[in-house]
């Protein structure tokens, strides 16, 4: 506390100093802010606004109406889809928790060999979009998949892992459980040892201690992860479609717009429902977190005390961890097998192996990989430029309304990809280029949609990078005669490089496998990115082999990027600590 007060005091003069010198913004800053605002309005606010507007207007007359929502409520299919989506999302959270809880608890509470490996492997599912693994999961866990064939041979029964909604739940849980694992592990690690010791000192131990102290303290982290999983599953479009589950909300929105037409109001009504559910889940998560910054680790202290496991506990833990890891890595293993398989049907393993699929992918389908590189790089670039600029405007200037830029950019989190796609189609289809091509058909629209979708994450990375730079470093440069612009160029940007790069790589990697927005916007195969190509391949039995090969390439691409961003962050952190 003494340290905190001194730091506060030392900070106060510099803050008032800043206030004094920076009350008025420079014309350059104003122009920058207006530019960003125009971009966000054009590519986020207007498309989403259009979707909401259409949902509330009467077809034909254009007057305000609630009749579309009444239609929604009166249509059995939509109500069933809503409850199916809700059920699948909630059950995915439950199943994901079953995977994540033991892993988080074992690795944070016990001296466990391989804890690092588990935490790393736990990330793996995130680098592959769930629909990619869905087909592999069908081959492994489907009615005539590997596991059920063995079960039938040995015990004479099958388990319907992949029947209908079960399949969606299983695939989504396997793919999204890392969100819970990561948040929960962080929450557990952030509990100071003295929290537990104080309880022991007052007479508490064992499960009572866990229930009364450890679990409540980790709860906000768990809810944050769980709500993220819920939203992801609720918004996902491609996985249910690939598993041939059509009566869920996101697929319905897509099907209405693509099959019935862009003028049909139901797609827009469903979009509004999707947005509302997203916001609701985020609101619940924010409420759970509010006023509960339970990160209690003290300087020098290091999380909960880890204890040694007894031999039988250890055996049990290893068995549990192994089963869970096998399950969550199944899609990867299946995909890899499939990409080398000649024929794989009604048999536990492929009949033979071949490299032909890779040959085909590198030949005719290489356009997908090329497109993905272009789109994801451009999207990543837009994101870090916007992210850095917004972070600078918010943190370092006193421009009126600068927080609005931050809020608007972050609001993209609540907009499901399918909704953004529909919004772009509706907004930009009417706008035509001189030669008659509608604006919505240009590949650059895909890039812009990807950029908007990934902007919140890149913005956080840039924010964090700028926050770590002490204002006094900039003031020193200005004091020695550098103008604001030169200070940014020579001091701020070089110090932010690590964070900006990390933001770029994250944006790039996630944009590379994003499908929900692009599925709407891809107009021709020549403009299609990897994820779209994958989706097309995976829909036909003959395309599965090349699709899997393409999937493996996508996974490798994202894995490389994730690893690179990890290295960059670590390196820049090392450089910073060395500088201190």
């Amino acid at each position, binding site marked *: *506390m*003494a340290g905190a*007060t001194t730091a506060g005091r030392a900070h106060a003069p510099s803050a008032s100093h800043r206030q004094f010198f920076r009350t008025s913004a420079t014309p350059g800053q104003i122009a920058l802010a207006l530019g960003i605002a125009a971009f966000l309005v054009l590519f986020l606010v207007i498309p989403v606004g259009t979707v909401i507007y259409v949902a509330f207007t009467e077809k034909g007359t254009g007057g305000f109406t609630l009749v579309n929502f009444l239609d929604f409520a009166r249509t059995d299919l939509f109500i069933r889809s809503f409850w199916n989506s809700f059920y699948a999302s909630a059950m995915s959270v439950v199943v994901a928790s079953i995977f994540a809880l033991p892993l988080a608890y074992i690795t944070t509470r016990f001296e466990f060999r391989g804890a690092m490996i588990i935490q790393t492997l736990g990330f793996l599912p995130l680098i592959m979009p769930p629909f990619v693994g869905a087909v592999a999961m069908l081959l492994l866990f489907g009615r005539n998949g590997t596991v059920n064939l063995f079960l039938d041979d040995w015990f004479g029964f099958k388990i319907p892992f992949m029947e209908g909604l079960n399949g969606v739940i299983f695939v989504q849980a396997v793919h999204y459980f890392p969100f819970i694992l990561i948040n929960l592990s962080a929450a557990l690690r952030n509990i*100071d040892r*003295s*929290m537990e*010791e*104080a*309880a*022991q*000192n*007052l*007479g*508490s*131990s064992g499960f*009572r201690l866990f229930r*009364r*102290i450890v679990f*409540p*303290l980790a*709860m906000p982290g768990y809810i944050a992860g769980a709500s993220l999983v819920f939203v992801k599953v609720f918004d996902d479009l491609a996985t249910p479609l690939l598993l041939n589950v059509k009566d869920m909300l996101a697929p319905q929105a897509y099907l209405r717009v693509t099959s019935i037409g862009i003028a049909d109001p139901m797609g827009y009504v469903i979009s509004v429902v999707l947005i509302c559910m997203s916001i609701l889940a985020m609101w619940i998560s924010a409420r759970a977190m509010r*006023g*509960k*910054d*339970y990160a*209690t680790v*003290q300087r020098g*202290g290091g999380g909960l005390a880890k204890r040694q496991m007894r031999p039988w506990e250890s055996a049990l833990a290893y068995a549990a961890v192994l089963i869970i890891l096998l399950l969550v890595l199944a899609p990867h293993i299946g995909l890899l097998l499939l990409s080398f398989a000649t024929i794989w049907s009604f048999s536990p393993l492929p009949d033979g192996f071949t490299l032909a699929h890779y040959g085909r992918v590198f030949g005719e389908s290489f356009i997908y990989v090329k497109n993905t590189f272009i789109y994801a790089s451009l999207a990543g670039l837009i994101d870090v430029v916007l992210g850095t600029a917004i972070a600078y405007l918010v943190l370092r200037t006193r421009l009126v309304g600068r927080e609005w830029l931050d809020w608007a950019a972050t609001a993209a989190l609540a907009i499901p990809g399918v909704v953004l796609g529909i919004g772009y189609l509706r907004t930009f289809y009417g706008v035509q280029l001189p030669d008659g091509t509608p604006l919505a058909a240009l590949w650059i629209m895909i890039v812009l949609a990807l950029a908007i979708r990934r902007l919140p994450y890149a913005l956080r990375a840039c924010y964090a990078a700028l926050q770590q730079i002490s204002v006094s470093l900039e003031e020193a440069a200005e004091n020695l005669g550098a103008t604001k612009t030169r200070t940014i160029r020579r001091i701020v940007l070089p110090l932010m490089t690590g964070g900006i790069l990390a933001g770029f790589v994250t944006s790039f990697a996630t944009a590379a496998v994003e499908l929900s927005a692009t599925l709407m916007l891809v107009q021709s195969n020549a403009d299609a990115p990897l994820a779209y190509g994958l989706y097309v391949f995976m829909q036909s039995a003959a395309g599965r082999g090349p699709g899997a090969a393409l999937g493996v390439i996508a996974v490798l691409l994202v894995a490389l990027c994730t690893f690179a961003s990890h290295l960059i962050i670590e390196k820049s952190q090392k450089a910073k600590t060395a500088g201190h």
Partner: protein
Amino acid sequence: MNQPLPATALGANAVDVDIRNVDLSYGTNHVLKGINLHIRPGEFFAFLGPSGCGKTTLLRLIAGFNHADGGEVLVGGQDVSRLPPWKRDVGMVFQSYALWPHMTVRRNVAFGLEERKVPRAEIDRRVAAALELVGLGHLADRRPSQLSGGQQQRVAVARTIAIEPKVLLLDEPLSNLDAKMRVQVRRELRDLQQRLGLTTIFVTHDQEEANTICDRIAVMNDGIVQQVGTPMELYEKPTNLFVANFLGTANILPGRVLREAGERFFDIEGGVRLPIPAHVMVPEGAKLVFRPQHASLGRDRPSDVWLPGTIVHSEFLGATLRYGVRIGTAEVSIDTPFQTGDALHQPGASVDVGLSLRSALWLAA
């Protein structure tokens, strides 16, 4: 904190703490080396030492969070060495306070009583009494994050004394407070301890804290108890150079002991020779130690011996003038009371340093 004494907590029930031959190592790092201490019933006792001396390790060992490789800890005559922390009944106030952020102040304080399955009505009564005792009755329904540092500290104390522990352990309880609060809270702690009559152990690296509130202090360094005594004993009669240096300012003159014609002399390095009084014990390799106020400058005051010195610098401290004076190879601090009109000795000036041999000590490391 001016409520009347609660009837349940009386000094008559106070227990002693006996630490016998306690040893503890982390790998090759020998943290506690054969600690023996006896803390009397109702005593306010301090473990004082620099960081890394083992004081917190020893405190946590009493609470059961560390385990000794050898030796035992007795609380009220009962060996608790093998008891887990939750069966020991020694209340600990953590340096960070360790208040649970998901519970209100009232629920934090009630926690220990609930774990002990105390009836609800009794819990309510004792929680209220504990909070009244620290003067926070009106904040019972707040969350810890809504309290100031000083208030959090009092909640931590209330939470601990609510279970009526046999012994109260305080791990640097003042270190997270600002300077002004520190002085106030340490008085309150002393006051509370006196009224409860609770055997209390206080860990600190701040000698002023220990001096002002503790009955006795164990000075620790390098995993060893250097000396145990009241604050005055430790200041007046330190038994080694570490203790002399750690408590207050000590001037140290190196030199060697000479014997001539049955008399002992101390030959100050690069300086003069002093007679050593007959009754004084001088250990092997000892140095001459005296406090700044036990020497005077100039021959106008009577003194046992005079040493020739040179003024190096001077500091005006208000009531006193502190001079840095070179004697032989060493530099010492000498305080002289300041009176209006006194002239400062200028750096470089030669002075005679008068030393009272009764207050001088010969100490080894």
